[in-house]
C-alpha cells in the first residue's frame, strides 16, 4: 500500500463540479480521498502543489503513435512521452500504422508495447475495414474483445456509404464508437490546403470545405438511420459544425472533436509555404475557426483532440506540395488553448479542462477523466503564472513538427501522474509561486 499526497493545490474536476482548494490523497494508483486538509503523515510521499491546479489527466481521442512501421517519426515510447509532457494520461492510438491495426494481434501488440514502454495509458483504435481499404469489415467484435476502444479508418475515409451504413449498424451492439475522418476524396483530389483566397494567391491546389461537410452530413444521416454512434474527427469547416448541430438537435448519436490548431489558426498560416501549416483537414478561414470555437462552446463539438501526427524534420523540411500532412499536438495543446482562450478571458479554465478530460471520456469510457474516489489517479498539475518560450524542452515526441515552437506561451504542465505514479515532472514549474494565496489559483491570473 503506497500513498501519495498532493497538497495545497487548487483542484478542478469538472465532472464533479469541483473547483476548490483541496488536498488529494492517492492510494495504490487510485484516488482515495479529497479534503480541505489531509495530514501529511498519512502519505509516504507529499507533492507540494502550491500555486498549481490539480486536474484529471487529459484524454486525447486522436493520436498517431506510428509504431509499428513508422518508428523514425515516433514510437509508442516517444509518443507516450509526448503525452506525458502534454498532461495526457490516456490516449487513443489511430490504426494507420504499418501494418494497419486491423487484427487482434495488432491490438495486442500496441497494448503490450504500451504496457512495457509506455508512460501513459494507450487505447488502440482498430481499423473499421481490413487494411483501411474501405471494402471489407474487420472482425469488429473480436477487436473489441482484444481491447480496441473505438474503430476508425482515420486518414482513409470510407467513401462507400453502404459500407459505412453497415459499420454503424453492426457496431451499435458493440458499444464502441466509429471515428471517421470525414473527407470526400474526389472533392479533395490533389488539394494541399483550404480552398480560399490564400490558396488562390499562393497557387496551391485547394481543398473545398464541402469536401468535409458533405461526408459529415452523410455520416449524421447514416447514424440517424442506423442508431449507430458516429464520432466526427477533427472538425474544420463551419458547414460541418452546422450538420453536427442539426444531428444532435434531432437526437442522432453523433459526437465530435476539434483540434487546438483548428481552434487557433487559419489558412493565413500557410503564407510563406510553411509546411507546419499543412494538415488534413486543412486550416480553414477565420469564419470557420469562429464556428468551431462557438461549436465547442455550445456543446455541438464535444471535446478537444490533438490529431498528434509526428513526421520527421526531413519530411517536413520540403516544398509544400511534397511535405506530409500533420503536426504534433499533445505537448502544445494545453498551453496554446490556455494562452488563446483562458488567458484572454474567453473561457474559464474549468471549461478548457472539461473539454480535455470529462468530455472526451464521456464519448469512450466513463471510468476516466475525473478525480472521483476510486478512479485511477491519472492527474495533471498545471502551472499558469509564468510566461515562457515554448522550446524543444517542452517536446517529448521524437518529431518536432510543431508550429508553436519558439512562441511565448502561458500555461504548462508541472507534472503528470498515471495510476498514482509521476511520469513527467518539470522542476521549473514548481515552487515559483509558493507564496500565492491559498485560494482560487485559477481565478487569480494576471
Amino acid at each position, binding site marked *: 500500500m503506497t500513498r501519495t499526497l498532493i497538497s495545497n493545490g487548487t483542484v478542478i474536476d469538472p465532472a464533479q463540479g469541483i473547483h476548490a482548494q483541496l488536498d488529494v490523497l492517492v492510494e495504490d494508483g487510485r484516488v482515495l480521498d479529497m479534503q480541505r486538509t489531509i495530514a501529511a503523515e498519512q502519505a509516504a510521499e507529499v507533492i507540494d502543489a502550491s500555486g498549481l491546479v490539480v486536474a484529471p489527466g487529459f484524454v486525447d481521442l486522436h493520436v498517431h503513435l506510428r509504431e509499428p512501421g513508422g518508428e523514425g517519426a515516433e514510437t509508442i515510447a516517444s509518443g507516450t512521452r509526448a503525452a506525458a509532457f502534454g498532461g495526457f494520461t490516456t490516449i487513443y492510438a489511430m490504426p494507420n500504422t504499418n501494418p494497419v491495426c486491423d487484427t487482434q494481434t495488432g491490438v495486442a501488440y500496441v497494448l503490450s508495447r504500451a504496457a512495457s514502454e509506455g508512460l501513459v495509458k494507450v487505447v488502440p483504435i482498430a481499423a473499421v475495414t481490413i487494411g483501411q481499404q474501405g471494402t471489407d469489415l474487420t472482425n469488429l467484435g473480436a477487436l473489441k474483445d482484444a481491447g480496441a476502444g473505438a474503430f476508425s479508418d482515420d486518414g482513409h475515409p470510407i467513401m462507400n456509404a453502404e459500407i459505412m451504413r453497415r459499420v454503424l449498424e453492426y457496431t451499435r451492439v458493440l458499444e464502441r464508437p466509429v471515428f471517421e475522418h470525414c473527407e470526400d476524396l474526389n472533392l479533395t*483530389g490533389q488539394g494541399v490546403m483550404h480552398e480560399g483566397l490564400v490558396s488562390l494567391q499562393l497557387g496551391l491546389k485547394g481543398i473545398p470545405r464541402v469536401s468535409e461537410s458533405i461526408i459529415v452530413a452523410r455520416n449524421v444521416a447514416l447514424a440517424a438511420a442506423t442508431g449507430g454512434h458516429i464520432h466526427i474527427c477533427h472538425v474544420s469547416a463551419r458547414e460541418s459544425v452546422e450538420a453536427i448541430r442539426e444531428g444532435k438537435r434531432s437526437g442522432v448519436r453523433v459526437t465530435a472533436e476539434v483540434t487546438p490548431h483548428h481552434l487557433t489558426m487559419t489558412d493565413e498560416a500557410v503564407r510563406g509555404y510553411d509546411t507546419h501549416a499543412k494538415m488534413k483537414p486543412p486550416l480553414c478561414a477565420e469564419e470557420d475557426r469562429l464556428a468551431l470555437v462557438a461549436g465547442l462552446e455550445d456543446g455541438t463539438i464535444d471535446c478537444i483532440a490533438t490529431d498528434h501526427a509526428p513526421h520527421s524534420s526531413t519530411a517536413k523540411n520540403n516544398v509544400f506540395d511534397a511535405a506530409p500532412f500533420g503536426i504534433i499536438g499533445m505537448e502544445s495543446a494545453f498551453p496554446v488553448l490556455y494562452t488563446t482562450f483562458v488567458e484572454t478571458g474567453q473561457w474559464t479554465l474549468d471549461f478548457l479542462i472539461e473539454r480535455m478530460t470529462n468530455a472526451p471520456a464521456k464519448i469512450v469510457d466513463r471510468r476516466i477523466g475525473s478525480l472521483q474516489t476510486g478512479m485511477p489517479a491519472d492527474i495533471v498539475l498545471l502551472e499558469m503564472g509564468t510566461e515562457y518560450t515554448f522550446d524543444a524542452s517542452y517536446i517529448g515526441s521524437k518529431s518536432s513538427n510543431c508550429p508553436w515552437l519558439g512562441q511565448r506561451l502561458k500555461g504548462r504542465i508541472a507534472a503528470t501522474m498515471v495510476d498514482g505514479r509521476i511520469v513527467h515532472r518539470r522542476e521549473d514549474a514548481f515552487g515559483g509561486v509558493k507564496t500565492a494565496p491559498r485560494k482560487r489559483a485559477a481565478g487569480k491570473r494576471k
Partner: protein
Amino acid sequence: MAMAKKAVATQSAAATLQRKDLIAIEPMSREELELILDNAVGFKDIVTRTVKKVPTLRGKMVVNLFFENSTRTRTSFEVAARRLSADVINFDVATSSVNKGESLLDTVETIEALGADIVVIRHASSGAQQFLGSRVAASIINAGDGSHEHPTQALLDCFTIREDKGTLDGLKIAIIGDILHSRVARSNIWAMTKLGAKVTLIGPPTLVPERFRDLGVEVCHDLKTGLRRADVVYTLRIQLERQAKNLFPSTKEYRLLYGIDKERLKWAKSDALVMHPGPANIGVEITRDVMTCPRSRINEQVTNGVAARMAVLYLLRGGAAK
C-alpha cells in the same frame, strides 16, 4: 525613343534591387518593377545591336535548373546570361541524381557549392523557389513555380506593353484562359495592377473563380463583354489536361466560347495589342491569323524576354549591391 534615353539614364544611376532573389511580383513595389523595366530598355538596345554582349556578369556563374521542360524560357535565360558574359550551366535534371531521390534542397546546395551565383529554377511545386531562397546564399530567380508565379514573364509582358503604349496606367488588359492554374496570369495580375492597368480576367467559372476579384481585378465569363474597350488581349495557353479533370468540356467548346479569332478581336479596341506567352494551341485559344496580324506582339515578347531577364540578372548580381 525618349523613353529609352530616360531609361538608360536611370540605369547609369546604379540603382539596384534590394533583394537577393526574384521569387514573385506580389511583394514588389511599383518602383522596383519600373527599375527593372527601365533597365530592360537599355538591354534591349544591346540585344538589337551588332555586338550583342556586355561584360557586366563576367566571372559570375548562372545555373539553369529546370524541373519542368521549357525550351523557351530556359533558352531565354541562357541567352540573357551569355549576353551579360556570365558562365552558364544548364543542369540537366533528367539525368541527374534528382531522379534518384536526392532532395531539391540537396541539389541546390550542391550547385551552390560548385560556385553558382545565380540559380534560375523552374519547379512544378508552388513555393519551391521561396523554400530554396530562404535556405541558400545564391540568388534564386523563379522561372515558374507551380501555379504560383512566373515573374520574368510578367516583366517582359509589361515591358512589351509599355514599349508600345508608353505606359500601363489606365490601360484595360483582358487576360483570357485558365487563370486558376496559371502562374503567368498571377504574376501579370500583380505586375499590371501595380503599374496602373485595369485587368479583366475572362474564362469559365471553373477556370476563373469569382474570388479573383479580391485581387483587385474584374472577372468576366463572357468573352464579348470582357473584351469591350480592351487595350490588350492576352490569351493564355489552355492546358489540355485540364479537360480530363472536367474543368471544361472540350477544346471545341473552349474555342466556341473563348477562342480569339479575327472577328472576335474586333470586340476589343481597334488598336488593341495581341499577346500570348507561348507556346500556343493554334486554333484553340487563338487562330494563326490573329497570331501573325500586325497587332500581334507575340514575337516581340520573345525578344523582350531576353532584355527583361538581362535586367533582372544585372540588378540581382551585376549591380552594386554585392
